[in-house]
């Protein structure tokens, strides 16, 4: 079991190195990329589109309740500018669907 433990530590450290390289690498490459207008717009649009892509499969797999809860949370967040309020309302909707319906 000692070998297993050693390997586990090595894997965790390698995973850390990979992750850090991507974080830091992106910033370095970004320095070069941001000199072009097209790329600058691309980078500007990325936060929204990346996050959206991240959540789409989960919302689809959750079905109608997921869509309703996400939509309401999104609108509330936009109107109130308060993530916590949006979170509470969104969670209330999904918990209600899962437990009552």
């Amino acid at each position, binding site marked *: 079991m000692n070998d297993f433990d050693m390997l586990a530590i090595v894997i*965790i450290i390698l995973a850390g190195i990979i*992750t850090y390289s991507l974080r830091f690498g992106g910033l370095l490459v*970004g320095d070069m990329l941001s000199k072009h207008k097209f790329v600058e717009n691309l980078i500007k649009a*990325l936060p929204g*589109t990346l996050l959206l892509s*991240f959540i*789409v499969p989960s919302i689809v797999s959750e079905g109608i309740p997921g869509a309703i809860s*996400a939509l309401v949370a999104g609108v509330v967040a936009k109107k109130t500018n308060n*993530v916590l309020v*949006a979170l509470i309302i969104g969670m209330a909707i999904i918990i209600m669907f899962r437990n009552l319906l």
Partner: protein
Amino acid sequence: MKSNFIKGFSATIPIAISVAAYGLVLGVLAYSKGVTFFELLLMDVVTFAGSAQFLMVELWKDPLPITEMLFAVFAINLRYLLIGASLTPLFKKSSLFEKAALMHLVADENWAVTLSRLKKEKISPYFLFGGGICLVIFWLISTLAGHTFGFIISDPYSVALDFVIIIIFTALIASFYDGKDSVLPWFVAAIFAYLSFLFIPGKWYIVIGGLSGAIVYSIEKHFREDKSE
């Protein structure tokens, strides 16, 4: 004037609370998979990436599948290249050393909070770093608590712990809504993300959806500006 570090730290607290819910679930899962307390602690500090850690824990078995695990971590964290690139404006005045030192604690959550704040006011990279410190504290406490007291949570599904992150991200996406210009790019991103999710294994759908939507936005802007000239 409050320092950027403090501002970033406190602005990240609401989302860090929801991250803690997620961390609690990870801790419980890690415990059930036989990940030790120290291994989880090391993962929290060295990797510090929620979804990658979930993947690693899910793949955790004896013997450890080193190639699959590391590739999974690479694939799921590939988005950090884009996240790093999107932070370029924030780090414009920073030295290379400052960049190297502050980038480690960048996660989806403090990145999103920082970028939406950057649209409204001038902030320094220490806002981002303050958010990172806030997250790492909540992350350590929650994952390790989950690992230690995992048996208490009997039914994470009915309290919808898994959906907390989704709602949080939805709320953050709303803050990036840029009027009519966002509609087509977001539609394209959603379609490409879902199709990639169905047909391409792993977490590539995040990168593919994100990039395709952003490319549509760039093209849209390119033509709009041509017209106005």
